[in-house]
């Protein structure tokens, strides 16, 4: 294989982002869940929830650590692998990048304080208050960094005169048209995924036969937000469809294998393209694409043929899109089913098949996050800055990217194993039943003694 710096740079960026996004997603969502548990624990005076918050925090320190170091990696790799992109984009979109560091700084400080001050305040609510800046900081950094990604999709706030970027408006660049749907989708899906991940931990223990009420409480307090946020994710996803139809029609068209501009367009699910470029074996939902794009069957949806061939995203993004949507729907069903059972058939809510489904919701929601990002990024190809700069124009010229792919790959494997081993040891050797006993919190609702 001949050395292709652009392709290798893409692979390395994909590798780092794919790894980082897991920890970033957990990093955004879990503080909210910890806050919820601690709040409920304080309000109901139920130490089981406090214990949940404590144990989640402990695990969170590990995922945050990996999130921080991989975040540093991707932050630097943007300049190392795409120097010309950062040179250009830096002039227009540096503001939110800069603010992201502040938000993270803020989060890091309060997290440091929060972790080490469980027993330092007379009133537990003061300790809880320290978590608010953590949650705000993590969501704010997600917000800022997503505006940068949104800018890559719908750049605005500048003009190009004779090849020079002028007339720059950083605020306009930051609040570009892709921001509301993208930020909304990133935040809701991060909260959803974190809720499912924590729920699956509780479900997993219950499947192994643990029957302490602690686990049931854990399951309930995670699954209810999971319902809320999986529905919210779907709603925002629907808005994203309309956004794409208006601002990035080629991305929607590639996702949907929609070639000719037309109204009453059907939604094509899965299938394949034969040698003549005809869609075969697909599930067609009449009018659904038009409805996704503009709420009515008569909405005209722009087809891929309107775009020059070298400006079309690769057609395999169709599968990313379909998988993402399928997983999203499945996850929503799991969450809703649990809620329905809990309300009307409580004796079924903790059946093995239900618990198994909840255990699976964690890997599936993480997979949905990965696939969703692959759709978002590959669907923007060939552009790095849509309409202005192509990916191939901005890659580094260094001859060493291929070696670094292997080196970073090894690094991520080592970090995964390390984090896995430590998390396992942390929780396995110190089960909650034992810890609750040590604290005298076995009956969570009683006034605590310590």
């Amino acid at each position, binding site marked *: 294989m001949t050395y292709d710096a652009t392709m290798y740079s893409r692979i390395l960026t994909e590798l780092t982002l794919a790894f980082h996004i897991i920890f970033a997603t957990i990093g955004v969502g879990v503080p909210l869940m910890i806050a919820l548990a601690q709040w409920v624990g304080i309000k109901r005076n139920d130490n089981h929830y406090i214990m949940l918050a404590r144990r989640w925090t402990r695990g969170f320190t*590990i995922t*945050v650590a990996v999130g921080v170091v991989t975040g540093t990696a991707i*932050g630097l790799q943007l300049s190392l692998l795409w120097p010309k992109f950062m*040179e250009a984009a830096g002039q227009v979109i540096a503001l939110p990048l800069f*603010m992201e560091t502040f938000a993270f700084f803020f989060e890091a*400080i309060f997290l440091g304080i929060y972790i*080490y001050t469980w027993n330092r305040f007379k009133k537990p609510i003061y300790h809880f208050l320290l978590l608010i800046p953590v949650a705000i900081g993590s969501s704010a950094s997600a917000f800022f960094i997503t505006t940068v990604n949104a800018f890559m999709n719908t750049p605005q706030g500048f003009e190009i005169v004779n090849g020079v970027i002028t007339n720059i408006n*950083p605020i306009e660049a930051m609040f570009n048209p892709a921001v509301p749907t993208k930020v909304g989708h990133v935040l809701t899906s991060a909260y959803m995924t974190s809720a499912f991940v924590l729920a699956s931990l509780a479900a997993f223990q219950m499947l192994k036969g643990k029957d302490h009420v602690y686990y049931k409480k854990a399951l309930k307090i995670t699954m209810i937000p999971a319902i809320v946020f999986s529905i919210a994710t779907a709603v925002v996803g629907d808005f994203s469809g309309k956004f794409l139809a208006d601002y990035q029609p080629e991305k929607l068209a590639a996702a949907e294998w929609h070639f000719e501009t037309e109204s009453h367009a059907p939604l094509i699910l899965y299938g394949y393209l034969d040698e003549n470029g005809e869609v075969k074996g697909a599930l067609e939902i009449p009018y659904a694409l038009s409805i996704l794009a503009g709420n009515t069957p008569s909405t005209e949806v722009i087809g891929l043929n309107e775009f020059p061939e070298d400006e079309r995203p690769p057609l395999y993004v169709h599968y990313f899109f379909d998988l993402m949507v399928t997983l999203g729907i499945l996850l929503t069903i799991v969450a809703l089913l649990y809620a329905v059972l809990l309300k009307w058939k409580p004796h079924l809510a903790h059946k093995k098949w239900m618990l198994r489904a909840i255990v699976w919701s964690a890997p599936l929601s993480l997979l949905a996050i990965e696939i969703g990002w692959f759709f978002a990024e590959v669907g923007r190809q060939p552009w790095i800055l849509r309409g202005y700069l192509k990916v191939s124009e901005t890659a580094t010229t260094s001859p060493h990217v291929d070696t670094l792919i292997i080196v970073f790959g090894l690094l991520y494997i080592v970090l995964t194993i390390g984090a896995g081993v430590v998390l396992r040891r942390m929780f396995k050797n110190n089960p909650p039943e034992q810890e609750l006993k040590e604290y005298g919190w076995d009956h969570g609702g009683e006034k605590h003694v310590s």
Partner: protein
Amino acid sequence: MSLELLGISVLWIFLFGYVIVASIDFGAGFFITYSEWTGQKQVLHKIIQRYLSPVWEVTNVFLVFFFVGIVGFFPKTAYYYGSALLVPVSISIILLAIRGSYYAFGTYGSKDNKWYTFLYGVTGVLIPASLTTVLTISEGGYLTITDNGVYLKLTALLTSPYSWGVVLLAIVSVLFISASFLTYYARKAEDSHAESLLRQYTLGWSVPSVLIAVIVFYMLKTQNVEHFNQMVDLAWMFMISLAFFMTGLYLIYKRKAYGWAFTAITMQYFFAFLAYGISHYPYLLYPVLTIYDGFTNETMAIALVIAFIVGLLLLIPALYLLLRLFLFNRDYVKGTR
């Protein structure tokens, strides 16, 4: 003050902040590992762990802040340094990643794992070494710049005595700064055993750090004579730096006022760092990139400055709270809470 100058000054001061907090952290790693070899681990372990645990992530953010800031204020640096530094900076990223994550694994996960301690100590020495190559490259002569791209002359870098001199200076300075801070911290914790060990370390690294600094200074003459001459013009700043060094050393030697001793040593580095930065002016990269032709547009610069001020208004009280609860809290430092 022009916006260009304001931007680089702010970034330079933040970088100095990183140099100090990171030095304490990196050196601490080295001392823990070293004391494990010499069988004195128990003496230092607790005190270092107590200091580092709440602040390690904050340290890392200082660095991120610097490089995001420099790309924001001076986007052209992304092109020159980004293109050229793929390999050396990737090495730094990997070391930082190993250090950060294994620190967390060791602290929050399994206690007292020899491997974690080893990784933690070794990376503490290697990271400053790899990061300082950026400063070496900024002196010029290590890059091939063509219309197609910017390339690093790796062999030239690796065989340059100046480059290794800077590496050595960085490592020795890290150990000196770290030891002087930890001496102070140990006294606050009323841990006299750790205090006397760390005081020895401080004294041991003090004179070598200044000697190497002087040697590197003379090596710069062959590396970049223009920069060297500008540094000579700022000799008075280096004299102030030296005076602070003597003050700090005297206090440590006399076992007096370690807090002031550490402050003096910080000021020693502050003046040297500032003088180095001022004499580097106006170049971000000799001889191709100055802060003027590398600068972003005025609108962005103003926006960044405003964001910076607002950010500081949020951060300073937060940092103050962090320091008050941990660093300057007698009970916490002593380990009673």
